[in-house]
C-alpha cells in the first residue's frame, strides 16, 4: 500500500496495483484492500482489464459499503490503464 496522494481532488488513502490481473482478481483484491481501510477512506485500483470498468460499476451498486467516486482511463506506453476510485462507506 502506498502513501497518501490525490487524484482528481480526491484524497486517496491507498493504491492497489491490479495491473495484469484477470477477472475476478481486481475486485477480489479490492475487497480485501478496502477491508483494511476506515470508513470514508478512498482506495484507488489500477487495472489493465477493460472489463473491470463495468464490473466496478456493478460491484459498487451491489456492495453495501462501497461507493464508486470516479473512473479514469490513461494510456501508458500504449497500454490502457483503468483507474477506479472507491470509497469505503460507513
Amino acid at each position: 500500500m502506498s502513501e497518501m496522494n490525490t487524484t482528481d481532488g480526491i484524497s486517496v488513502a491507498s493504491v492497489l496495483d491490479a495491473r495484469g490481473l484477470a477477472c475476478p482478481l481486481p475486485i477480489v483484491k479490492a475487497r480485501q484492500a478496502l477491508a483494511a481501510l476506515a470508513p470514508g477512506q478512498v482506495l484507488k485500483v489500477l487495472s489493465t482489464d477493460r472489463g473491470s470498468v463495468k464490473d466496478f460499476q456493478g460491484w459498487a451498486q451491489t456492495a453495501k459499503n462501497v461507493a464508486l467516486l470516479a473512473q479514469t482511463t490513461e494510456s501508458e506506453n500504449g497500454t490502457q490503464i483503468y483507474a477506479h476510485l472507491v470509497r469505503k462507506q460507513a
Partner: protein
Amino acid sequence: MSARNVVTKTEWSPADLYRRLELGEQPFVLDVRNRDEFANWKIEGRRELPTVNLPYFEILEESDGQDLSPEAWGRLVRQRLDGQLPADQPVLVVCAKGGTSALVAEGLRTQGFDAVNLEGGTKAWGDHYEIRPVLESPQLTIHQVSRPARGCLSYVVASDGQAVVIDALRHVERYEEFARARGLRITLVLDTHAHADHISGGRALADRVGAPYYLHPYDAIHPIDVLPATLSYRFLGDGQEFTIGSSRLQALHIPGHTLGNVAYLLDGRFLFSGDSIFVESIARPDLGGRADTWAPLHHRSLGRLLGLPDSTRVLPGHFSRLSEAGADGLFAATLGDLRRRNEGLRVAAGSETEFVRYILASLPVFPPQYVDIKRVNVGLTVPDEERSSELELGKNVCALAQAH
C-alpha cells in the same frame, strides 16, 4: 454420486457448445457477467435456454473475503441459487473471457453439480466460426462461413481452383486457412454492402491475398457523417459480371437496406442476398437514418428479387435465430419456400404503401455502435483489436423485428 468410467469434460469449447446447441441440447446456463453485458447479449439455443445471471461480484459479496477457494465459490453459488440449479443436467458457466467462470464451474463440481466452463467466455463464443458446404460438385463448391453467436453469414464460392469470398467477416485468416487447405486461390473479394453490425474483413482479406475488393460506390459514403471512404475499393455496378473458373457471378444493385446494397446471382441459381431477404425476415432500411425515403427503394428492390425463379437458392447475410437453420445446419432456403413463409417478403409482394407502413411499424432499436462500425468499414476510423471486439459484441439486428 456414482463413480464414472469416462472422464467428464470440464470445459466446452465454442465448437463443442455449437454442436450441442445444433442437436437441440438445452444446457442450463449460469452467466456470471455483470447485468449490463448480460442484458445486451446472452447464449441462445435453438429454443430458449434456461438461464440465470448472477454477476460474480454479487457472489463475492456473500463471502468473508478470505476463503476464496473453488469450494468456497461453489458453496456461495449453491446457497445463493438454492434449488434453481439442476442436479440432473449440465450447468454451463459463462463469463466474458472464461477465467471467472472456470473458477465457478470448478466450485460447483465440488458441490456435486455437472458444471462445465465455456472456454474463452463470450469473447470466444462471439469469435467462433462454422463452415458448412452448400454445394460440392466437381465444377463448383459453395461454403457458408458463419459466426453463429452473432448471426453473421459469409460465403466462399470456388471453381477451377479460384475462389471468391463474399462478405468476408473480420477474422480473415479463417478464409485464408480454408483456401489453403483446399488448394484454392482467392482471386476476388466482394461485399454486398458497407456493413453496420460487424466489421468487414473484405479490404483486409483482399490485401492479404492480393485480390481486388469491390463495393458499390453509393456505400462508400458514410450515410450519417456524409463523408467519403478512405479505404480503397473498386466500383461495383448493377449487372456487372465476374468469372470464377467456369461459373459466372452477377451483381444486382438492390438499394434499400443501404443505398449501395447489392446481391449476387451465381449461374442464375444461387442468390447471395446479403441484407435483403433473410430466411425468417427481411432487412431493415433505416440504418442510414432515412427509413421513410429508403423503404420505397427497398420495396422496388425486393420486387426485383421476387422476379427470380422459385428454385433460386437464397443464401442470406444474416440470421436472427439458430432455429432458422435447416437439418443440414445451413441458413438457406429456396425463393419459392420463402415466398410462402417469410412474412416480410409476402408484404413486399404487395403495395408500396402497405409495405412502408409495415416496415415503419417493425423497426427494432438502432444500436448506437452501428454508426461507428460503418465508419470502420469505410476506413474513417481504424480500431485496435480490443475496440473491434467491443464494437461487435452482441447479435446483429439487421432484420426487421419479428412479431413472434
